[in-house]
């Protein structure tokens, strides 16, 4: 394209050959990614729709696999345990959103200023986020000890001994809340970084202008900071919601969905159906439903962002 400027006819043919060569090279460069995504993402994704409509077991049996239409979906939707798991992740999401995003927002506001040891402080706040969920379970497994673990000691100290020790992971009324606590602690660091980036994106002139107009710190926060962070809020809320709906690891390790199914989640339900009960078709139906949920949340984000005009 750029070579046309030279406009020397003799140059055209080699240029064309070079274009062709370039095209081959580009294809070779993009091929590994395309190939890997086709094999490991697109194929299983399409397969999951097909498998969801069959009675395929996990381990192949001599009887042929039958096409059963939407039977699996019908069974999923009529299983009370599926609805319990959906209700549980909804509960989890509703609790974890304010705790985790609030914590992230608050720490980001604190850190968004010139501070001595700035990088060290940011690093400290980010440490839980690089901690593996399995390690988080080891730590909080001891914090939650009943009846005399650290959290119960703190509760008893703060309440002057009036509150009885809580069986954090063993009491159906508390188990999901405990999972919320450790999940929020583990993950808020990422949202904090996103908020920091968002805060940095608000032009300093806006604050200066507000200051000249005599706006108080509180008013500056409401009328400059908050509107400036709208896309950030939407983004953070959406990724936290999607993450929350995929709740699995901490539940699988600490409670296995119990006690009394109070922490059963959609992904845990799916894995159990697929690998303990070996009903692959059925589990695939659950995975398709999970995908639809995530897709709806992502579409909602797009809609909200457009509404906010960004």
């Amino acid at each position, binding site marked *: *394209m*750029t*070579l046309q400027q030279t406009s020397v006819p003799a140059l055209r043919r080699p240029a064309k050959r*070079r274009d062709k060569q370039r095209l081959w*090279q*580009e*294809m070779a*460069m*993009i091929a*590994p*990614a*395309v190939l*890997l995504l086709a094999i490991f*993402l697109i194929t*299983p*994704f399409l397969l999951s729709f097909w*498998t969801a409509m069959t009675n395929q077991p996990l381990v192949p049996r001599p009887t042929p696999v039958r096409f059963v239409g939407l039977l699996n979906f019908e069974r999923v939707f009529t299983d009370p345990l599926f609805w319990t798991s959906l209700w549980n992740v909804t509960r989890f999401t509703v609790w974890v959103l304010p705790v985790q995003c609030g914590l992230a927002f608050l*720490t980001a506001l*604190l850190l968004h*200023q*010139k501070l*001595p*040891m*700035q990088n060290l402080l940011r*690093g400290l706040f980010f*440490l839980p*986020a*690089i901690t*593996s969920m*399995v*390690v988080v*379970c*080891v730590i*909080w*497994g*001891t*914090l939650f000890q009943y009846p*005399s*673990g*650290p959290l*119960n*000691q703190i509760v008893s100290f703060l309440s002057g001994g009036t509150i009885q020790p809580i069986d954090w992971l063993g009491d159906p009324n508390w188990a999901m809340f405990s999972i919320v606590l450790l999940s929020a602690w583990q993950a808020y660091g990422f949202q904090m*970084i*996103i908020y920091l980036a968002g805060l940095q*994106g608000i032009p300093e002139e806006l604050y200066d202008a507000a200051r000249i107009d005599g706006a108080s710190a509180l008013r500056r926060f409401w009328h400059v900071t908050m509107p400036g962070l709208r*896309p950030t809020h939407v*983004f953070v809320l959406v990724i936290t919601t999607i993450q929350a709906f*995929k709740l*699995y*690891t901490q539940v699988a*390790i*600490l409670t296995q969905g119990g006690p009394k199914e109070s922490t059963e989640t959609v992904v845990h339900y*799916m894995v159990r159906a697929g690998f303990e009960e070996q009903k*692959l078709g059925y589990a*695939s139906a659950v*995975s398709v439903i*999970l*995908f639809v949920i*995530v897709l709806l949340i992502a579409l909602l984000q797009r809609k909200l962002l457009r509404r906010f005009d*960004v």
Partner: protein
Amino acid sequence: MSDLALSQSAPLAIPRGNGKKTLRIVQSLCILVIALVMISPLFMLLIASLKDDRFRILADMGSFRAFWVSDPTLSNYKEIAHFSGELAYGRYLFNSLVILVSTVLGGLVINSMAGFVLAWGSLRGKAVLLALVVALYVIPQESIIMPLVVMMSRAGLTDTFAVQILPWVASPLYVFLFYQFFAQLPKELYEAAEMDGASAFRIYRSIYMPLSLPALATVSILMGIESWNQYLWPTLVTQTDYARPIAVAIATFFGQDSIYWDRAMAASVLMMIPVLILYLAFQRWFVSSFVGSAVKG
């Protein structure tokens, strides 16, 4: 560094009272206290891993002794850091490292090449590919895992390193991040190199890669954390010690009647070290470049 220079020169420009300075110190001390509260569970983990009696660990937990050990010992680490046998945490750690390094290195090369072609290539259908990448990003790992396990076991890949690396090397998110990063670099850069007759790969390798340290660092940290923390997938595709990663191994502590907290704590500390090093090494670029752009994507 430049931040530091700025804050030091500031008093020259705007004379500040001592009161303001004190306020700032008090403020940052408050933040430091909050930070210490947030990371106290991690500190407790480190301290507990140095105590050799699991009952004492639990007994100490409820008091300030959780943050202090008068007779530190490495016996827990010695107990678990084997390369074979029942507590082969040396081996699990090594396995996880192999998986992490291969995934990140492979991912950096493959995703950045794809991102480069999407940004500057002359390939027709580029726009369609880019839209496809964005669409694929929505698919959660959890919802492809069922058929993928069956595919992998049919291919005879169960219990290998490959099965834990290959599926996660190429990723729509990282292709997109690289695309976004390359696309914002000036057009003249590409055109000048093209005029000089450099091939596409040459331009990518000698011009764009050296400019991409922030993007490479960000993707390394994100991919590294992701790979290191994989749990669901390796529980489904590993059955023996051969390729079992440390996350799956630590989780087995919870399956026992009485949890060996001392060993679990030591294994947890071992697991934290590599990802901590990765983070410290790349943190400088990470914080400044991370997702400022992703918010709009």
